[in-house]
């Protein structure tokens, strides 16, 4: 296929070509004088996207999720717009009452005035990606585009092509950090029509312990496209917890990819909370590369209207004696559509693998739909891997029991829905975030603010 940057976009042009032109043009213009790690990633991304394009439903990993709505919408790259401003107090409802280090991206652009990363705990470095590319090129080059290479898939390629915004978080060895670093992505009305491609790099050195919150909120009901890639390195004996909270505008598009690589005896935990966006896709991929390490991937999705929410997990057991635990739960109302695909791949060397995966979904209306698929590929003979998926409706026996005590239909249903969601929220170790998400869930189902 031959594409030319100078050709005006005709109405008959394939939308992917438009993105491709944008990506190529951006990579060319923004590579000039860009720090080496970013320039390399952009070039690789533009090349990969030209080759891969957007995935189609013919691709097995995208069978239940059509991204044509994204491919057919023109967006302006966040990096080609100026950094906006916002009253800092506007963000208060989204910071969990914490005085934690905060990195704010407004409409896809790093907003230093809204961020507070000046007082960090000892041993933690939090840097804007562009700064890190200049000040720490060697460190960045070791991790950028490594666990999530630019040619992984179309979205990761597009993210690479537009690389520039993001944050590097580095926790030095043996540092145990009690407070999380919060990366808050905010979109307001002026973010309509913007696409942002944040790339975050999280590094926990040997025996370090840290947690990061990655959240997405919107202050206006506008349409935009977020396409994040988070690269995670959890070194030997380290523990990293990532809380992902997707509360985008109901008309937004969101693709969020996490790719982790784990060392010996490490533990990586990711919790994915998904209630926003018209169309969203979450990818959480981890490679258990060192012996004796483990991963815990949990999630809760609550969708309504015609929302589409897709969750993909991939746990690659490379080394022996590792464990993986996955529990995803969902509540689907109205005509919403959920997708869960949990891949567990056990290499021949990964003996004594202990894997457990569950996906439970409650359908709250007859038009709601879930496609759930465990996918176990096991090439070692001494392993224990289980999976289970349930799809159900509100339990009639429980409903009658509650009613027989005087609790009305509406409240009884709400309590049962909340209860269904609550046990996976229980797994969140950060109390403030856990309580905030419990409140969000409770309010969604009961309108009550206490429990």
């Amino acid at each position, binding site marked *: 296929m031959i594409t030319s940057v100078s050709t005006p976009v005709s109405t008959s042009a394939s939308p992917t070509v438009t993105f491709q032109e944008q990506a190529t043009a951006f990579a060319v213009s923004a590579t000039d004088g860009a720090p080496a790690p970013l320039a390399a990633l952009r070039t690789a991304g533009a090349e990969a996207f030209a080759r891969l394009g957007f995935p189609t439903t013919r691709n097995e990993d995208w069978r239940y999720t059509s991204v044509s709505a994204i491919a057919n919408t023109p967006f302006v790259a966040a990096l080609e717009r100026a950094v906006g401003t916002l009253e800092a107090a506007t963000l208060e409802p989204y910071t969990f009452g914490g005085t934690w280090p905060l990195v704010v991206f407004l409409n896809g652009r790093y907003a230093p005035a809204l961020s507070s990363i000046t007082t960090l705990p000892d041993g933690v470095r939090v840097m804007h990606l562009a700064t890190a590319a200049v000040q720490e090129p060697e460190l960045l080059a070791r991790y950028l585009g490594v666990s999530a290479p630019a040619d992984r898939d179309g979205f990761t390629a597009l993210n690479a092509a537009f690389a520039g915004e993001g944050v590097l978080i580095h926790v030095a060895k043996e540092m145990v950090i009690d407070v999380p670093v919060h990366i808050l992505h905010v979109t307001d009305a002026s973010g309509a029509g913007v696409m942002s491609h944040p790339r975050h790099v999280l590094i926990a050195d040997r025996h370090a312990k840290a947690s990061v919150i990655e959240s997405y909120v919107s202050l206006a009901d506008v349409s935009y496209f977020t396409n994040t890639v988070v690269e995670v390195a959890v070194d030997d004996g380290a523990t990293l917890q990532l809380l992902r909270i997707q509360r985008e505008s109901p008309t937004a598009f969101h693709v969020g990819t996490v790719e982790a690589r784990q060392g010996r005896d490490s533990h990586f935990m990711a919790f994915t909370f998904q209630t926003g966006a018209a169309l969203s896709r979450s990818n959480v991929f981890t490679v258990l590369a060192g012996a004796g390490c483990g991963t815990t991937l949990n999630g809760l999705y609550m969708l309504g209207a015609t929302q589409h929410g897709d969750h993909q997990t991939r746990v690659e057991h490379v080394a022996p004696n590792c464990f993986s635990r996955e529990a995803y739960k969902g509540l689907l109302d109205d005509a919403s559509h959920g997708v869960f695909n949990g891949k567990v791949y056990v290499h021949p060397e990964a003996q004594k693998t202990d894997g457990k995966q569950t996906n439970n979904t409650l359908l709250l209306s007859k038009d709601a739909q879930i496609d759930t698929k465990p996918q176990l590929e096991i090439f070692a003979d001494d392993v224990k891997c289980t999976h289970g998926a349930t799809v159900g409706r509100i339990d*009639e*026996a*429980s409903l*009658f*029991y*509650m*009613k*027989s*005590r*005087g*609790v*009305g*239909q509406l*409240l*009884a249903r709400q*309590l*049962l829905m*909340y*209860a*269904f*969601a*609550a*046990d996976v929220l229980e797994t969140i170790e950060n109390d403030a975030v856990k309580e905030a998400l419990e409140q969000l869930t409770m309010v969604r189902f009961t309108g009550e603010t*206490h*429990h």
Partner: protein
Amino acid sequence: MLVINDLHAAIDGKPILKGISLTVNAGEVHAVMGPNGSGKSTLAQVLAGHPAYEVTGGSVTYNGMDLLDMAPEVRAQSGVFLAFQYPIEIPGVTNAYFLRAAYNEIRKSKGLEEVDPMEFLDVVEEKLKLVDMDVSMMSRSVNVGFSGGEKKRNEILQMAVLQPMLAILDETDSGLDIDALRIVANGVNALKRPDNAAIVVTHYQRLLDYIIPDYVHVLAGGRIVKSGDKSLALELEARGYDWVLEAA
């Protein structure tokens, strides 16, 4: 208080109750006994409004109202309480939250103010003593991980808190050892007042040593085949059910 007249009910099209008539007045305790499959539990479930049962004939009047026309929660708010034979487990909802929600729904239906968690704790504390339950049980999920005896005590606790006018105990004694049985029976007896009533559904006479009935009814084949006083229960214990069924 309760007038059941020629009640017929079916499940999945299969008739279970085939013409039950029974009158319960305030201050009375009625025991409903009978062999397995006689329709005892169905009667209890139909009175509470279980949606799986279809009422195919007859009427039930409760304090002048058409009970069968009331939603299950409205029946409960009006003072009808069913202690379940198999109490339901509700993971994720604490006992305290559930019971307070029920208590407040009933208060709201009477136009009373709702109580907050602290006030509710005061309400619950003395009732816990009645059934020998520790307050820690309130912060556990409803019936989850409870022993058989704990589940039944939890039913009586709910009854004690909600203070029904008409309590229906569906085989509350089944599966209980003698100590648990005594606790449950003491709880029920402590709640007895001249203005409320109870229907005690049981397979065994044993419970009736502790909860003394004013009337005993024998249910068989979906009908009441014999009624009497507490001596009937003793006779059933001594002679079994066959002689009643034959006589019917």
